[in-house]
């Protein structure tokens, strides 16, 4: 309980710090919205050229895009700023985090929660809900549960990817933008039906790394469509469980990484 109060205090500190830069916060809020809007517009533009992409209609594709947008932005809002870890490691400022009586990861999350991404999250959820409506989903209790769990599972999965790629900085200070290939690359991958990708690429990203289970499989289950790639129907309902091993791996790498922290001189 006391610990929750401590994290709330950290979050409050962040909110008050931002209040001293009100205009720039408003601008960031809007410019942040832009990137997610653009992702959705891209899907519309694509379907101007053709009625079906990879065997899916615009409405069906939008469900995957919306599911990805809601899940990814939620993850980005909560743990996306962990990407700054490489800055803390490089400058040795992680020291001040380590001397406090709180765990490192939640501290970093709450110290610097990017509230400017809130508007973007609202838009992502809007696209997801709108896609559920236009697809005339045949609702059953299981499907309703899946509709709620799927974006949360996607968020947890992307969150694990954020933590995992950020942890690289403990070993490799110049990890730079390599992590972005998996976070932002993963988001772009899951925004479309995976049927559009070539075999080997799909094999690696969708199945080996698990991105195919983030939005494509749950969307099939929600749409009541059989998988053209041959996975059974229950796979869609089980898909959100992919975030469990993802979190376990991320937590393990993080723990080992923090022991590797070297700080800097003086």
């Amino acid at each position, binding site marked *: 309980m006391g610990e929750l109060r401590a994290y709330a205090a950290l979050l409050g*500190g962040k909110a008050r710090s931002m209040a*001293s830069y009100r205009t720039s916060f408003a601008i960031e809020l809007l410019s942040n919205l832009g990137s997610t809007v653009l992702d959705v517009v891209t899907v519309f533009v694509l379907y101007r050229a053709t009625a079906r992409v990879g065997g899916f209609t615009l409405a069906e594709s939008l469900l995957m895009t919306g599911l990805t947008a809601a899940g990814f932005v939620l993850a980005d809002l909560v743990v996306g700023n962990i990407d700054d870890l490489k800055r803390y490691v490089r400058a040795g400022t992680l020291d001040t985090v380590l001397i406090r*009586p*709180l765990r490192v990861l939640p501290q970093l999350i709450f110290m610097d929660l990017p509230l400017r991404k809130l508007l973007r999250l609202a838009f992502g959820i809007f696209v997801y809900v709108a896609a559920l409506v236009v697809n005339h989903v045949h609702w059953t209790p299981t499907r309703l549960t899946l509709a709620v769990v799927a974006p949360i599972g996607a968020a947890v999965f992307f969150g694990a990817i954020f933590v995992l790629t950020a942890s690289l900085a403990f070993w490799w200070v110049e990890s730079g933008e390599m992590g972005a290939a998996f976070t932002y690359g993963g988001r772009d991958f899951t925004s479309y039906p995976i049927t559009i990708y070539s075999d080997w690429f799909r094999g690696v990203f969708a199945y080996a790394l698990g991105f195919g289970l983030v939005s494509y499989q749950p969307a099939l289950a929600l749409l009541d469509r059989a998988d053209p790639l041959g996975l059974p129907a229950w796979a869609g309902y089980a898909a959100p469980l992919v975030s469990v091993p993802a979190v376990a791996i991320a937590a393990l790498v993080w723990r080992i990484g923090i022991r590797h*922290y070297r700080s800097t001189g003086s």
Partner: protein
Amino acid sequence: MIRMQDLRKDFTVRVKAGRLRREKRTVPAVDGVSLTIEPGEMVGYIGPNGAGKSTTLKMLTGVLAPTSGEVSVFGLTPVPQRTRLALRIGVVFGQRSQLWWDLPLRESFRLLRHIYRVPAAEHEARLRRCRDLLDLDAFLDTPVRQLSLGQRMRGELTAALLHGPGVLFLDEPTIGLDVVSKQAVRSFLAELGATGDVTLVLTTHDLADIERLCHRLVVIDHGRVVHDGTIDALHARYGSRRSLVVDLDRPLASGFALPGATLVAAEAEGHRVTFALDSASAGEAVAALVAAASVRDLSVVEPDIEDVVARLYASA
């Protein structure tokens, strides 16, 4: 209370070997340090840049995991018991701030109260004391980013003490401060140490900090302890002596000898002479001089600790 047993920290660095090849090399930053510090002690940790002072402090606070050896503070092992230990120690890094950059100083203190879960009354009492001793009131409502370095450091000291730690670790607390701020920090720490409630461990390059604050001096070089004892013991060990500078009306008779002292310099055609005091006290030497010669003026010069330490670094 603080125990280090054969503590080591190795860093792996990659050095260029040829055009593309890079070789891994292991560099010991702390190379087998064993020390015990008792409650209420004030210990100064000095050494040249890169000697391993900060690395040791970081292992004591749980920031870095040791490569080998044992370390315990309050019976806790800093890694993995970091968060439990953090509640009982205070840390000030002279070159890192733990305050909220964009918030008034007062807000940082309020946030720290929640982070360390300090009851309001205790927090108030400790803050009151720091406000009085460190003159914080004038800038308590100023955002940290607008504070001068001296003001900020006074804020950092307060931040490290609000949860009532039993040990305060200070990594170069006076670095970059002007003379007045240095004095303020030193007299605050002296007062804090005098209560005996807080054990102080500080690293510094400014030996005046040590002379003012620390009874015990630990000199570290290349990751090893090269001296552990009082400042007087350091002087005794390296043969640094007080000296007596005397102005005379007439030069001393040739062959004059002062028992227990050595003539080390004669200037102004013998009108100013300097004796190093070996075994004689200043009083004995002055008495002998006044009896033997016509003394116009004299002064006793303390040995310069900077010189001693410079010699120590060079020999280590």
